[in-house]
């Protein structure tokens, strides 16, 4: 009778995963779809949904495809929880005769467990990190073998060599297709409370020193406020970094083209010093490391905070909740160097296909449609009369859609998995006239490069996987302690040299090798 009957989740889940793999290995003897990339001929793949149409042997008849059903797994967003009756899936069904069953990731390990059990949905909406983890293991289908069935995808990749580079693995395989067009919505921007600043005759800060003095002023005026608020904990440094001319972690230096680590740059120290100053004077909330979206919203809507960084769409969302006052876009304050930047917004997520999918034909049709001009139009705008009308030759959304976010919430437009190519004009069409400024202004401050990493070979990623975790842990612990003043800044040099002990040179060298290989 012991008190702790609870078992560690990790071990239980691992055991379950193992058991599932064993079962899968036993029962799937004649699946013949191992990790060797030898896929069965799609034309002969029996159709699960029991369609009555005789198997189409020539896939070159796109007019009347057999009805099929595929499953897709995507993130779960609390802002726009997926609904089975989202119109995006209906349109897709009308266009391609494919019914989509959408599942969502319950937690960070969901994908790992799905892969480990072999019970993968047909399509998985994944990030490059996950592709690097599971692709070489054989979880995902090599799409480069199937380009002949996806002429639109091929055309898209051929006309966008940058995308082709990002999805091509060192051995030439393609495990994922990155989405495109929604990137500007992922832009992180600075903004401030225009009315409060005007009331006290304050100017929005243009440098980090001014950010400090203005915040100090505001704290005097509103003693129980935290003038500056941000909610991604240590990850927010990725947004602050470019105003000091760097990204905090691995990135390609725009001037030299070489891979670097931001945290050992002198500008990074300047940034930490500034944040430490703000923290010591109580100018941002002491629980910044555990701030979530809800408490961030509370700070913003109850006049507790006046300056923030967040996704560009949040300005409008918060403005709609404010009873009085207005948030306004703010140029990033300069911290170091000669120009203050914002991080370059990118989309790096996209589709990957399960290597043991039983609906290969339908899956390829799904992907091809998503990257076709027709698919782009329908998945971005919807249907005339249903979501938009045409006025003076221009599409206009129906008045039931009040803000851009309604498109996601009500019909699923622009949500993960529901588009391959997005027409961003559709999105911006719903942004109110006076809320468009941040979208346009932010483009002027975009950092020349996104912090994207080159694809590694299986051996390369195996050599650095533990170091990457150690280094990240060391980085985030040390930096948060410097910011909170628990480690004096005098010990900064010791921190910088300790990075090498955690394998930094090896990681950088690995990325550099991979990057040079791509450039060749």
């Amino acid at each position, binding site marked *: *009778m*012991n*008190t*702790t009957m*609870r078992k*560690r*989740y*990790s*071990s239980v*889940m*691992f*055991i379950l*995963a*193992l*058991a599932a*793999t*064993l079962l899968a*290995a036993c029962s799937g003897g004649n699946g013949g779809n*191992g*990790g060797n990339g030898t896929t069965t001929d799609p034309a002969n793949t029996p159709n699960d949904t029991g369609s009555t149409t005789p198997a189409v042997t020539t896939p070159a008849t796109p007019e009347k495809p057999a009805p099929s059903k595929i499953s897709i797994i995507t993130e779960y967003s609390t802002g726009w929880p997926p609904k089975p009756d989202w119109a995006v899936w209906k349109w897709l069904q009308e266009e391609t005769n494919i019914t989509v069953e959408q599942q969502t990731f319950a937690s*960070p*390990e969901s994908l*790992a*467990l799905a*892969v*480990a059990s*072999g019970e993968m949905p047909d399509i998985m909406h994944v990030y490059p990190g996950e592709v690097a*983890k*599971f692709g070489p*293991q*054989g*979880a995902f289908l090599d799409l480069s073998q199937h380009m002949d069935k996806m002429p639109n995808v091929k055309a898209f990749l051929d006309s966008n060599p940058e995308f082709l580079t990002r999805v091509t693995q060192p051995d030439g395989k393609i495990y994922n297709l990155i989405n495109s067009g929604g990137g500007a919505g992922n832009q992180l921007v600075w903004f401030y409370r225009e009315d409060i600043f005007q009331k006290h005759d304050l100017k929005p800060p243009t440098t980090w020193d001014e950010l400090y003095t203005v915040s100090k002023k505001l704290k005097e005026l509103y003693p129980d406020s*935290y003038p500056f608020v941000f909610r991604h*904990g*240590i990850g927010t440094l990725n947004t602050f970094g470019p105003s000091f001319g760097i990204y905090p972690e691995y990135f390609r230096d725009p001037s030299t083209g070489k891979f670097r680590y931001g945290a050992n740059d002198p500008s990074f120290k300047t940034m930490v010093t500034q944040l430490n100053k703000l923290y010591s004077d109580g100018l941002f*909330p*002491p*629980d910044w*490391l*555990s701030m979530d979206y809800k408490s961030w919203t509370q700070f913003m809507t109850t006049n507790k905070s006046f300056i923030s960084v967040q996704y560009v769409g949040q300005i409008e969302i918060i403005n709609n909740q404010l009873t009085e006052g207005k948030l306004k876009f703010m140029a990033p304050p300069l911290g170091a160097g000669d120009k203050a930047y914002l991080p370059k917004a990118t989309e790096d997520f996209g589709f990957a296909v399960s*290597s043991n999918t039983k609906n290969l034909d339908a899956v390829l049709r799904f992907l091809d449609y998503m990257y076709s001009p027709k698919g782009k139009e329908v998945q971005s705008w919807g249907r005339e009369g249903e979501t938009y009308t045409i006025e003076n030759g221009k599409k206009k959304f129906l008045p039931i859609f009040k803000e851009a976010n309604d498109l996601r919430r009500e019909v699923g437009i622009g949500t993960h998995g529901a588009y391959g190519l997005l027409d961003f004009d559709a999105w911006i069409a719903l942004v109110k006239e006076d809320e468009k400024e941040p979208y346009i202004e932010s483009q002027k401050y975009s950092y020349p490069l996104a912090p994207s990493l080159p694809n590694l070979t299986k051996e390369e990623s195996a050599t650095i*996987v*533990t170091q990457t*975790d*150690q280094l990240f*842990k*060391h980085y*985030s*612990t040390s*930096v*948060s*302690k410097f910011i*909170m003043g*628990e480690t004096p800044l005098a010990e900064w040099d010791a921190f910088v040299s300790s990075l090498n*002990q*955690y394998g930094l040179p090896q990681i950088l060298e690995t990325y550099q090798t991979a990057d040079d290989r791509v450039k060749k």
Partner: protein
Amino acid sequence: MNTSIFRKIRRDRAFLVLLAPALIFYILFRYVPMFGIIVSFKDYNLFSGIWKSEWVGLRYYKMFFDNPDAFNIIRNTFLLGLYKIIFGFPAPIILALLLNELKMKRYKRFVQTVSYMPHFLSPVVVAGILVMILSPSTGFVNQIIQDMGFEPINFLQKADWFRTIYVSSEVWQEIGWGSILYLAALTSIDPQLYEAARMDGANRWRQMWHVSIPGIMPAIVILFILQIGKIMELGFDKVFLLSNAATYETADIISTYVYRMGITSANFSYATAIDLFMGIIGLIFVYSANVISRKLGDTSLW
């Protein structure tokens, strides 16, 4: 009397049926998965399967010990487990002894119920409560501290506080539940012993010291040995939910590390290697505790 095995089975069939569910559970979920430890010696590929994966020997064990954080993680796990035993083990015994001295039946039952209620709270809920009440900007603990004229303490973002918070919340959660067993042991003590002690002029304190405690000693020893075995085995969920970048120094334990490296990074071989290593350490602990207790007294697990 040479009863054949079949006759024995026939005779005890009712008991065997009763035993079956537990037996099946252990075979299915404790023994069959043990086969999985083989992946810790292989470069396990999910799609090639266990047999076809390449044999790499002790590579993953070496990898763990080459990790500069390994010592820190083992130390954190060990210290957290040790503190949990130091503070968490005697607490239910004391509570049980105190409850045993209570004369008011109703009050006793009330205290018992209230004290074991937290055991049924999910760690997620407990972590949520802790984050709320300990928040430096909105939590009431810090409001009291401020009202008394002190500076607020940023409890959850100070590495020094992590163990205190974790261990005390564990004690709070488990004290009542843990005392049930000792209370049961206390009721089985022969009342004549107390009478005899009273005749000899022992006060209540003496009675507790010389009758109650020796009476429940076997239970204490057995539970202690079992606890020792679990010293490295801490609830993953609460630690995971209460830790953040600022407290990794004390809050990163084996199970959170295994979760990060093994489950989310899909490095199953590495995670298995670490877990097997921990299992061996746990076994050593139980075995030594058992040996010691057998030497000192006559109570032991085997």
